[in-house]
């Protein structure tokens, strides 16, 4: 019982820090930073993933092989390694220091984009071959067939998976902590360092917050999935309804 009242008290005293970090006296942080990073991350990863998926499906080796290499490299390496790589390599290569936010965003785009590209590719390949045949027979080029016929269907079918990838992205932003990105985990840790004696309560709050956000998004994905399945099966023909 005291656990919860302690936790409530911590939330009451620190809600602003959990919500927006040091802002406006410092950088934007907390849940706001987590959500902004996740939304920007998945938002930029998505177009990248479509390009990578198309490259992987291309019959041109100079497009296919780099895309393949990227996907395999990213899938075979822990996210934390990529964060370190970007964190230490980018400044070396570019000759300027790169803020933690930008580092984390680049990493997320690369990482989530590679995973998402596999989802997109699967979505494209799952469509019946007749769809491409029909589009080509009507005179659409490969690009036109993709744009007007294949991708709209594949991406629509993939909406639930894209949403799950968004949930993963939110969880992946926690790793921004190691390069001092002041997102939600970072804020929680700040509180913990200040209070010192209530780690369990602080990290319970943190866990519950992540859980609430991710759980509602997962539920949304599930709902989307079933409503897409229902739509694909098609509503009852109008005549049947009229006949009754």
């Amino acid at each position: 019982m005291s656990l919860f009242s302690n936790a409530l008290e911590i939330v009451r005293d620190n809600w602003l820090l959990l919500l927006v970090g040091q802002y406006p006296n410092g950088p934007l942080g907390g849940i706001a930073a987590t959500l902004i990073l996740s939304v920007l991350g998945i938002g930029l990863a998505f177009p990248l993933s479509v390009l990578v998926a198309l490259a992987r499906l291309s019959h041109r080796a100079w497009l296919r092989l780099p895309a393949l290499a990227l996907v395999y490299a990213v899938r075979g390496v822990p996210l934390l390694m990529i964060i370190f790589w970007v964190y230490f390599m980018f400044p070396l290569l570019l000759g300027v220091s790169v803020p933690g936010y930008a580092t984390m965003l680049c990493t997320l785009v690369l990482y989530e984009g590679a995973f998402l590209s596999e989802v997109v590719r699967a979505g494209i390949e799952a469509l019946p071959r007749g769809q491409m045949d029909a589009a080509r027979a009507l005179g659409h080029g490969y690009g036109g067939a993709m744009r007007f016929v294949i991708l709209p269907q594949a991406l629509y079918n993939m909406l639930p998976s894209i949403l799950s990838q968004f949930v993963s992205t939110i969880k992946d932003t926690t790793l921004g902590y190691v390069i001092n990105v002041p997102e939600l985990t970072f804020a929680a840790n700040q509180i913990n360092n200040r209070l010192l004696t209530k780690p369990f309560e602080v990290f319970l709050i943190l866990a519950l917050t992540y859980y609430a956000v991710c759980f509602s998004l997962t539920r949304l994905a599930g709902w989307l999935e079933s409503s897409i399945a229902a739509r694909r099966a098609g509503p009852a023909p109008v005549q049947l309804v009229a006949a009754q």
Partner: protein
Amino acid sequence: MIRFEDVNKYYGPFLALADINAQVARGEVVVVCGPSGSGKSTLIRTVNRLEEIQSGAVRFDGQNVHAPMRAAALNRLRSQIGFVFQSFNLFPHLSALENVVLSPWRVKAVGRAEARARAMALLERVGLAERAHAYPAQLSGGQQQRVAIARALAMEPPAMLFDEPTSALDPEMVGEVLAVMRSLAKDGMTMMCVTHEMGFARDVADRVWFMDAGRILETATPTAFFGAPQHPRAQRFLSDLRSH
């Protein structure tokens, strides 16, 4: 108008089309029949190069469809050859009307309003004007196939190819699709139809091609073919068909 010259096609080591020499004259209706696996679909799909061939030529209006050419040239050729599939292959994310509008609008750059007006007229012609805003999943098989025919006609092709357009349909829906095909033939459309609808062949076809094992074994008028088939395989095929 369509001319096969010494066409050979392999799937790996398997010879799917052997020394095909035949032609469909302008305004002619040719019915292609033969047992399952004899190469009918393969043959008809070489006309718009949905299948490649290994030697020979398939000419459409004198132009070899299989000559090396730019993608744009092939797309233009394909847009002049209407193709109707056994499995309809309507685009499920578009309404009936949008299915018919898409290609004239996007491939031929017909204005959207004009494309819509012409699409409505075509749906009217196949008897589906009142279902224009239905999605494919809301239409019966026969209705879907009629929309598919309207979609192909929307490109104003001088010739139409049909690959078993009625074999995926419940028997009571075959008639409505054949009626549309009959009216096309009556209007002088050049047609190549793979079908086992012998009544249609008898009434509408100018010539019947009988295929087996990748070869055209017999070409004859319907009267001659159904009355006195020459090739023993054709005789067996017809007696099998009648005993069903």
